[in-house]
């Protein structure tokens, strides 16, 4: 009983910790994905911007959707939102609380991707190298505009033959990387300050309502789990009764068709009960065949009334 209680407590506390764990795993996965991904800027005038900004914004959308899919609570929230009212009223505060906690957890991994991308700098260099002002960079000043565009587009590709001997490309890269890192650190700072303020100032506003919402959202989660467990237990008992009923009906059928020695109940103990009157190869074969061809109806009311 104690062990059961310990496991149940773990079970109960683990719903939040499971979600935090998934959130952390997705964050790690996003960093790993970025390092594994082989970023290769096309270095062509029209494609750079699309590629750079695409790599910066499409994976965060994917990570956000993954965060929503993998979170069990999102299904619970939708369920609670769409269910018919029945005998239980709906509490919008609980639904709002669940929604906000889901959103908060789901935005962690995308934000990490964006920040890592900005701090690394490759995406922004690729996207905006074509939009630089050539006047600032001396070496590019005495070529035609079309060539300028092409040269600027090739800046992210350091090992291109045109770039190897050109030192202005380093200036462009450094400039863009500096901007990118500044942007990255600023976003990180703003987010952390916002999180800090939100957490610190929350108790000042409506703490009681918050506690209620959290309690009831936890309750909905546990109730759903226990419902599923009870259904499983019930289906196991149902199956057990159904099969026993099936064996007994086979026994009766055998008694009707073949005149065996009448088996009184009092002499039989132990093994004979388990055999249920099925005592030779033919009977076993018949039982198995009947099980396949004519499964018993899902109705154990006769068995329970006996």
């Amino acid at each position: 009983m104690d062990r059961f209680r310990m496991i149940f407590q773990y079970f109960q506390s683990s719903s939040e910790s499971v979600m935090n764990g998934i959130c952390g795993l997705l964050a790690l996965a996003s960093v790993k994905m970025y390092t594994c991904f082989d970023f290769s800027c096309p270095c062509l005038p029209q494609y750079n911007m699309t590629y750079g900004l695409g790599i910066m914004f499409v994976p965060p959308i994917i990570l956000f959707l993954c965060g929503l899919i993998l979170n069990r609570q999102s299904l619970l929230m939708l369920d609670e939102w769409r269910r018919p009212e029945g005998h239980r009223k709906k509490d919008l505060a609980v639904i709002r609380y669940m929604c906000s906690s889901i959103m908060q957890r789901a935005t962690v991994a995308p934000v990490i991707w964006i920040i890592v991308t900005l701090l690394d700098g490759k995406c922004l260099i690729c996207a905006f190298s074509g939009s630089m002002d050539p006047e600032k960079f001396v070496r590019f000043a005495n070529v035609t505009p079309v060539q300028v565009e092409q040269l600027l587009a090739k800046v992210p590709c350091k090992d291109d033959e045109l770039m190897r001997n050109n030192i202005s490309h380093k200036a462009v890269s450094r400039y863009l990387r500096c901007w990118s890192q500044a942007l990255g650190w600023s976003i990180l700072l703003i987010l952390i300050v916002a999180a800090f303020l939100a957490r610190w100032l929350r108790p000042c506003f409506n703490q009681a309502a918050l506690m209620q919402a959290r309690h009831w959202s936890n309750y909905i989660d546990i109730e759903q789990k226990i419902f599923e467990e009870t259904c499983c237990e019930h289906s196991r008992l149902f199956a057990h009764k159904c099969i026993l009923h099936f064996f007994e009906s086979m026994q009766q059928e055998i008694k009707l068709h073949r005149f065996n020695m009448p088996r009184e109940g009092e002499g039989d103990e132990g093994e004979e009960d388990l055999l249920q009157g099925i005592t030779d190869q033919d009977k076993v074969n018949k039982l198995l065949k009947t099980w396949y061809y004519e499964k018993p109806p899902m109705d154990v009311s006769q068995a329970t009334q006996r």
Partner: protein
Amino acid sequence: MDKFRMIFQFFQSNQESFMNGICGIMALASTQMYSAFDFNCPCLPHYNMAYGLGILLVPPFILFLLGFVLNNNISMLAEEWRRPQGQRGKDSAVLRYMFCSMAQRAMIAPAVWVSVTLLDGKCITCAFCTSVPVETLGNTSHPLLSQGEIQRVLARIPCKEIYNGQELIANEVAVRYLRCISQALGWCFVLLMTTLAFLVRSLRPCFSQAAFLKSRYWSHYIDIERKLFDETCAEHARSFAKVCIQQFFEGMSTDLVAARCHLPRKAPEDAGEASKKLLGITDRGTMNMALKSWHRCKPPLHLHSPAFPSGNGWAGEGQPPVYPSVPRRETAAYYSLV
């Protein structure tokens, strides 16, 4: 009861998590397979496309079929689909639910393979290198030969060591272009798959939650019922075997008594458990005969009822038991009545 419930919960949660675990293992296996696979573009005009698209599309198909094969529930689905109706109606919603959940899990490893392939870029580079737009990326003013020759040169783009068209179009430019397109396709594919998964998962509670709960319950029920039936049959077989063997030994001991004229039933009341378990076989010769008889002439799969309740029967005092009028298929020499 509590322990039973705990174990059962673990079992039940274990089956779903077991399936998810297999799914995850297959996804990891597909990435590992891809990195272990030595991609070798043929660099010939017509073979490139076939090779590239083949590597992109054939392994996912294999992984999809493998996902079905490794799923235990496929046989359950097939059995439920093909069984005669009998006394139990068939619910097509349950069949659909089972099939959908298996198909969803089986699609993950192929999707991972396709994404990794596209994001890596080698397959698309190999397949479409002959379609690179030379006019925009290279210089077509180069005095080269016919279309066929250009195709042959372009086909060598993935193989840097033998590439000889640097004047026509620079190798790095072409590779970067193709890889950029491949990665864009890869990310779009991943986005599409994730959006589909999200829609499927989030629209379900809005539309058919009750039907879903019903289908899920009954599909679990069918699984549990099948397992319980197997367990019950195994228990039955065990009891059957036990009684059969017991009757064999009893028959042997009767036979020996008849054949060797031992003192009948010297069942000493003070002998104790161990002696009773010897079933009348107390020397090497007898045991050897028993073993030989077990090998040469196994008893029929037909248990006669133990018609000799204690205190009656053997000693000859009561009437001999009434045997059933069932025709016996095999002669059993040791059913001799004394």
